[in-house]
């Protein structure tokens, strides 16, 4: 009973503290937009805020629009088709206009909440009349109602959505603490921390820092030599030297490519039905090479969107356009061709908008966008860029869908050296983009359905004008689209890109919804920093390595991830960055780490995708049984079992299970942000994956062969290999006890027995090999082994 009392008490006190903190936060942050908790699923922001004091000055972007968008736009927003009572609240004109049958009422009369219908209706006592209506399942809290009232009192000022205004030049803020900070990023971070009354954390230990840096920039752990070199380097630029080294490594390119594969919905199969194999890995090799040579982001993207349309397009630029052919393609016999052809164009449209603009454009496929100023017509304007491809809706077995190119060994030798073409292959067929259906006109499809075109009006290529109008200066094709994307007036492209880079390095984007910069997306935690980064990125000609370097060089990045209970309560999501984020490794990193530290990793770049271990039978269980298709998973032999995980063969209808379990997306669609979950299936993989057992055993063998080390030294060595640090005395004691327990359990004596020559994973004969394998497997399972920071 006593325990319950404590818990209960805590449950009342803790929220109170948090509320007080929030109240402080709200009061002190009017000078800059602050991201509100982006949830809407369980906890509405407004409920959290119910006990708060109203801000002195109510801001449209910060306070009002998130609520308006979330609770009102569905019926009173940009979509004219479902607009109720002719009222739209997403524009000032709409909100101030006369409404009602006799046009005698107004939703908002600035300065007069008592006459504003919006205020009256949200406070309506009659449940039949209250807004939002009961049927919407949406409500407003008292706090939110008061916010609205005060906002109207103060004049109901509308402002343009922040993300649709081009970033403005920002001066780097002055900060009070001259002893903290390495570069401009830190000034923005420190300024915000000052506002919150928080202080940055101390720098992480050198071991923690180098480990995190290695994973963030290369996806691989540092070797013991790497760690030792860094530890013993006392020069002031020791850290920078490591950063520079890593940025020039090919592992950097592979790590960045791995994330790009999610965004590009890359797969090694077509993704529907029989799920035939396709050859897109040469395109993947190109991505790696582009990161390797630090192709500027504007070129990197332009080539992928419109490489074929560039003047005198090189073969390499054409290969890059494979990006837009990574979508799924069906082989289902009964399918109506046009239905699926339209689907492929839809996929390109949605992918391009999400990846480069952070927009949920696909929401405007069937009707005007419910939340953002994107009309259905604009959607099809965007769609039309991708609608000139002469392609089939349904393809056959072994068919390489048009448009395609054939790459010969000679071309690889001469101009496509980045393709790692095996000797056994003399030529490759690769899907690319080509606008060879020039005659095809684009029409708005009613309800987004393929067989309901509105033929009254042809839709020419254009973009949502609220973002940036598609003026005459741009060619009306994909190249024009690319030019428009990289027009310095485009408010989204640079922000979306640096935000995603920030997410890679800091764990969460400055805009936490890296896939949605629209009205329903989160507000940036550091808007000025975001703009400064975006402008700097453009000024530095879209230099990605330079930008990554800036991020990892910052003191903000180098902080420890240790968190006090107090800080955890104030900032559980680490929005303010008063510490470093501690985050779980990605699915690729978890496996690559095992391979690397156990000495199994084969460092070979590119080439056809590989088939490492996978539980037996998975492909057969779901496959059709049609001869010749990918019926059975046959694991590779030899070095292909130990390649980095970005090369693992991706069968889209049955993706590699361990990777899915660790939150890799299915690659059905473009994804720019992975989940970070913690599940029992992950524990099972870590305990029982044969790959991990093999890695453990391999490392055990290595250490047992080293007769110069005693037991303590052996434990220290393997622990350090896996976690990048030495165990402390207590940990060492526990690990020794574990070894002893294992020995006595298995009635083994303390002497090391000779290693057997049997290399089968299953057959661990040597007694010490067995207990060391168990020890190492335990260390691999430590939380620390699968997190960075």
């Amino acid at each position, binding site marked *: 009973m006593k325990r319950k009392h404590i818990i209960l008490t805590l449950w009342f006190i803790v929220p109170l503290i948090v509320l007080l903190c929030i109240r402080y936060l709200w009061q002190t942050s009017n000078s800059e937009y602050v991201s509100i908790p982006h949830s809407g699923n369980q906890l509405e922001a407004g409920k959290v805020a119910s006990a708060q004091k109203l801000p002195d000055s109510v801001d449209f972007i910060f306070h009002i629009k998130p609520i308006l968008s979330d609770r009102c736009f569905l019926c009173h927003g940009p979509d004219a088709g479902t607009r109720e009572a002719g009222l739209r609240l997403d524009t000032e004109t709409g909100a101030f206009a006369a409404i009602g049958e006799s046009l005698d009422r107004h939703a908002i009369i600035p300065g007069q909440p008592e006459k504003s219908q919006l205020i009256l209706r949200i406070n309506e006592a009659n449940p039949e009349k209250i807004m939002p209506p009961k049927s919407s399942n949406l409500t407003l809290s008292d706090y939110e109602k008061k916010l609205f009232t005060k906002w109207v009192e103060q004049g109901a000022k509308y402002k343009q959505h922040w993300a649709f205004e081009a970033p403005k030049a920002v001066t780097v803020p002055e900060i009070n603490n001259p002893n903290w900070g390495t570069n401009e990023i830190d000034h923005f971070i420190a300024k915000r921390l000052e506002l919150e009354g928080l202080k940055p954390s101390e720098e992480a230990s050198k071991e923690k820092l180098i480990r995190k840096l290695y994973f963030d920039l290369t996806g691989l752990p540092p070797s013991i030599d790497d760690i030792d070199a860094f530890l013993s380097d006392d020069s002031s630029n020791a850290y920078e030297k490591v950063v520079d080294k890593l940025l020039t490594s090919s592992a950097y390119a592979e790590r960045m490519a791995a994330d790009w594969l999610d965004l590009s919905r890359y797969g090694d199969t077509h993704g529907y039905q029989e799920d035939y194999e396709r050859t897109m890995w040469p395109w993947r090799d190109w991505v790696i090479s582009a990161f390797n040579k630090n192709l500027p982001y504007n070129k990197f993207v332009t080539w992928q969107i419109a490489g074929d349309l560039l003047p005198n397009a090189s073969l390499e630029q054409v290969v890059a356009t494979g990006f837009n052919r990574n979508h799924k393609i069906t082989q289902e016999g009964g399918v109506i061709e046009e239905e699926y052809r339209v689907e492929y164009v839809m996929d390109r449209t949605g992918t391009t908008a999400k990846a480069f603009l952070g927009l949920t454009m696909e929401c405007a496929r069937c009707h005007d966008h419910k939340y953002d100023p994107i009309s259905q017509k604009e959607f099809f304007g965007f769609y039309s860029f991708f609608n000139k491809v002469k392609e089939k809706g349904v393809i056959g077995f072994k068919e390489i869908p048009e448009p395609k190119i054939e790459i010969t060994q000679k071309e690889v030798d001469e101009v496509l050296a980045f393709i790692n073409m095996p000797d056994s292959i003399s030529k490759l067929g690769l899907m690319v983009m080509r606008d060879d259906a020039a005659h095809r006109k684009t029409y708005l499809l009613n309800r987004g359905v393929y067989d309901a075109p509105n033929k009254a009006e042809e839709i020419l290529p254009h973009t949502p004008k609220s973002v940036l109008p598609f003026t005459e200066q741009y060619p009306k094709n994909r190249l024009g689209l690319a030019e428009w994307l990289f027009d310095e007036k485009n408010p989204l492209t640079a922000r979306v890109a640096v935000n995603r880079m920030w997410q890679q390095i800091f764990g969460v984007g400055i805009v936490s919804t890296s896939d949605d910069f629209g009205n329903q997306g989160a507000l940036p935690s550091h808007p000025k920093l975001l703009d400064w980064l975006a402008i700097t990125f453009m000024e530095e000609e879209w230099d990605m390595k330079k930008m990554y370097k800036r991020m990892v060089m910052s003191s903000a990045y180098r902080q420890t991830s240790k968190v006090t209970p107090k800080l955890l309560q104030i900032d559980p999501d680490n929005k303010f960055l008063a510490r470093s984020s501690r985050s779980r490794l990605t699915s690729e990193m978890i496996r690559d780490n095992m391979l690397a530290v156990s000495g199994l990793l084969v460092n070979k770049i590119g080439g056809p995708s590989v088939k490492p271990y996978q539980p037996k039978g998975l492909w057969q*269980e779901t496959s059709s049984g049609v001869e010749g298709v990918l019926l059975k998973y046959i694991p590779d032999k030899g070095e292909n079992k130990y390649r980095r995980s970005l090369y693992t063969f991706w069968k889209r209808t049955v993706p590699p299970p361990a990777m899915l379990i660790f939150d890799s997306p299915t690659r059905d*669609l473009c994804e720019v942000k992975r989940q970070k979950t913690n599940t029992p299936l992950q524990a099972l993989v870590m305990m029982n994956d044969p790959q991990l057992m093999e890695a453990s055993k391999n490392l055990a063998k290595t250490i047992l062969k080293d007769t110069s080390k005693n037991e303590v030294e052996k434990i220290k060595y393997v622990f350090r290999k896996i976690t990048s640090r030495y165990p402390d005395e207590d940990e060492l004691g526990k690990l020794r006890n574990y070894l002893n327990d294992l020995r006595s359990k298995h009635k083994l004596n303390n002497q090391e027995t000779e290693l057997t020559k049997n290399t089968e994973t299953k057959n661990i004969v040597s007694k010490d090999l067995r207990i060391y394998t168990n020890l190492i497997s335990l260390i691999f399972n430590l939380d620390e082994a699968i997190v960075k920071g």
Partner: protein
Amino acid sequence: MDEITKHFLNNNRRQFIKKLGVGLGGLAVASMTDPLSFLGGQKKVAQNILPENALHFAPKAKRIIYLFQSGGPSQLELFDYKPLLSKMRGQDLPDSIRQGQRLTGMTAGQEKFPLVGSQFKFNQYGESRAWMSELMPHTSKIVDELCFVKSVHTDAINHDPAITFFQTGSQQTGRPSMGSWFSYGLGSLNDNLPTFSVLLSRGTGRPVAQPLYSRLWGNGFLSSLHQGVQFRSGKDPVLYLKNPESISKTDRRLMLDYMGELNMKQEAEFGDPEISSRLSQYEMAYRMQTSVPETMNVDDEPDYIFDMYGEDSRKPGTYAANCLLARRLAERDVRFIQLYHMGWDQHGDLPGDIKNQSKDVDQATAALINDLKQRGLLDDTLVIWGGEFGRTNYCQGTMTDTNYGRDHHPKCFTMFMAGGGVKPGFTYGETDDFGYNITKDPVHVHDIQATIMHLMGVDHTKLTYKHQGRRFRLTDVGGHVVNDILT
């Protein structure tokens, strides 16, 4: 944070709430005052906490067994008796009936659409006088337990979109499967088995079957905690479940104990609550290592049970064996048990293939329902039987005296349900004499989904998940509860 709070937050919240007796309304309060989920966003919330809007009324069913018949079983050979088709055999489907219905790519080129009736005899059974074909002799005996819906219709005419539609409410991929929605919305009823369990079997009706895709039981944008977990026949019933041969169960316990100690040290140093959360996931995994094999091991089933489910039930991986496993999972309070039986896509050679295919499922389906009933489980278990669409009333391909085929038909087909809250011995919906159009009480896929959710105590318009700015739900923007079939 002190140990007690931590323990409470990570492991014990549901029991705690239960003990407090605050019930469901209290959950909302609880999650609002949870200091971690308070500002913590989805990550924490998704793991142990029910969405505050989950249960909306008293549920009739606690769990679901969904017997998905993949490929599209022919309603005309099984349930929907249409003697007119035999009378008009060989005559063309009148345009007045077809009404411009779109065709799949497989019959779009066909010049004629000759009507063809079932080769199999129909009779009425039970007190409810339900029509059943001779292909389902065992199921015919339990029609008074069943609630038939003969007027189901769907938007899709091809397998991938149609099956995706049934599972996720959308023809396009990317949304959570029904079982994931229930896992997310209602949480788990037990603490040692996955909430959403999946069993696959291959039919004997057609050796080359429609394939399945693991995304059908995927979590979509929900936390991967809610993904369906495949239970497989063989040594490793859940992927990665089995310890390597060199590690015994006591070894594993020992390892977990040491791991726990070492991890708690890390948590003390770094203060990251994810660490103890991860430990509790390991404990769940450890429990699964016992509970899953124990569930899958049917050695303790008496012979009469195998006799009841049929000889196939002794062969792991068959539909019958999976039905028996479904009962065992239901007994252990797994919330959503999804079977997929492949092979119903009978474009040609239908008479022979459907005979075999029906034999796969008939006895075991009936046995499952009887078995649930005799154990008192049928009252709060909803059993659902059906495919992704029906089949055409006209022949696809060559028609001979003994052979014919049928193409996909989205405009009407039959499903049946039993148990948890649906009327037993009841038939709902009617089709025309051609078995082509619905004449009474159409039931859309979204209506089926809304009804299933209703039976589980969930208002389908209220169980939502906000993703990329939009509140998604299983029934998308449609769905009406079919009140007439509820008890």
